[in-house]
């Protein structure tokens, strides 16, 4: 496992929907590299036959009936939004 390149940092930032400055690319490359390098410590362990833990409790999928129920009113759902028009969330144009 190698550390992370500047190009990778830019790609990951795009995937994470973060705009990062050139200066941040520099620091992030260094800091993420250090952390990823530290994580290679895990390679000391042979985990070939170990089952991954996603969840510590022995829980199965919890199902419920798919029924409509009262939750929040539309006006309430909109009241913390930064931009609202005609009872809907407004966002900048998606297509150029």
């Amino acid at each position, binding site marked *: *496992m190698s550390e*992370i390149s500047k190009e*990778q*940092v830019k790609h*990951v*930032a795009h*995937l*994470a*929907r*973060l*705009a*990062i400055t050139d200066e*941040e690319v520099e620091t*992030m490359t260094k*800091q*993420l590299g*250090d*952390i*990823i390098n*530290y*994580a290679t*410590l*895990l*390679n*000391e*362990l042979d*985990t070939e036959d*170990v*089952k*991954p*833990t*996603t*969840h*510590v*409790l022995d*829980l199965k999928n*919890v199902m*419920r009936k798919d029924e409509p129920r009262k939750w*929040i009113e539309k006006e*309430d*759902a909109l*009241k*913390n*939004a*930064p*931009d609202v028009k005609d009872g809907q*969330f407004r*966002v*900048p*144009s*998606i297509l*150029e």
Partner: protein
Amino acid sequence: MSLFDYTLKELQEKLHKKEITITDLVDASYERINEVDDQVHAFLTLNEEGAREKANELEKLAHEQDNLLFGIPAGIKDNLVTKGLRTTCASQLLDNFNDPLYNATVVDRLEDKNTVTIGKLNMDEFAMGSSNENSSYAATRNPWNTDYVPGGSSGGSAAAVAANEVFFSLGSDTGGSIRQPAAFCGVVGLKPTYGLVSRFGLVAFASSLDQVGPITRTVEDNAHVLQAIAGHDKMDSTSANLEVPNYSDAFKEDVKGLKIAVPKEYLQEGIDPEVKESVLQALKVYEDLGATWEEVSLPHSKYAVAAYYLLSSSEASANLARFDGVRYGVRSENATNMLDMFKLSRSEGFGDEVKRRIMLGTFALSSGYYDAYYKKAQKVRTLIKDDFEKVFEDYDVIIGPTTPTPAFKVGEIIDDPLTMYANDILTIPVNLAGVPGMSLPCGFSSEGLPIGLQIIGKHFDETTIYRTAYAFEQATDHHKKRPTLGGAK
């Protein structure tokens, strides 16, 4: 004596005898906040009007004799949503989230018990950090010495209790965020078993690790708060459908014959000599009380921090995707298209540590790296969990320090993420294994800073933790010392 020197039980006796009123308790909280919070910075938002209104309502009710939380002023960590009360997670991104639509289940459960919410408590942004220096508002300071950090991420929750600003608080713990600040601030903090307490309405950081828990001045108070918030919630599908025991039963039994395991990895190199000495002294106390202890090994401890940062950051990168500037939160004014709106809102709203962890998690989950990092860490998590299960076959509790050192100075390690992460080396394995853990005061450093003893129990065996902690607390007086900040009343 100040009202803050009484236990919840004693306060209820006083309320019952009408020696004090609920308004007296609420007044005491706000007076103290006015007196010291400009030094401590424990609070982000106060609920003074709401709290006084609630106190007036409660004054009209008959005193609920069996309800130990009746009328008690509490502080709530700012990552628990509170209906109509600003909830920011100490992030600029949620600076304008003034009107949340519902209460977290734990907040509803406290309200059912007629507690009074005093305000929302400062934290590391989105619960990412170990010092509260990642708050985007003001860094909370340690009430024992304001040059030092209170720990994090529930630093405000621990500092507010230590500084006598509230009678108890709620925090959240993903890798140590209740226990580490409890240790640094000399109070009692419990991270319950994963699944014991509902996470509905807790702004998610790492969903397979997060738990909500109480921070109090005494062990008994802690159990009373847990009693109120624990138990199944149909709104959280990871909450366990089990009957909640009566935690007060823990205080009827002594610790004669209790079998304590002490992991050698928790007392080795890197542990401050004063911390080690305090833990060894605590073990002597347990010997005197008739318990026995033996050294054991949790052999995969040294891998816990690396596995934790991969797993928790991966989960965080997914959980924090919801902050997109559309439905709530602050939207960047500099964007002209949708993609830029997402990117700029997030980049302007999130602080450095949050961005770093989102980046790390996105990388660990990205195509080509998933198996090498994320899946590998999940497998190591299994080994760490198995370590605990093996020890618990032969022992009742595991005891060690909560943190390698007492509180460090503000600014001392904030620029060095890996050193900051190493602070949680003794608390992280507990979250990975999903078992419960408590920190309680067990001494003071030569500089007068508190030292925390960590007691770890089996899954859903909080009762044995309380029993063990209570025996120690009764035999010592560390918990009676209070910081003198701003002249305690």
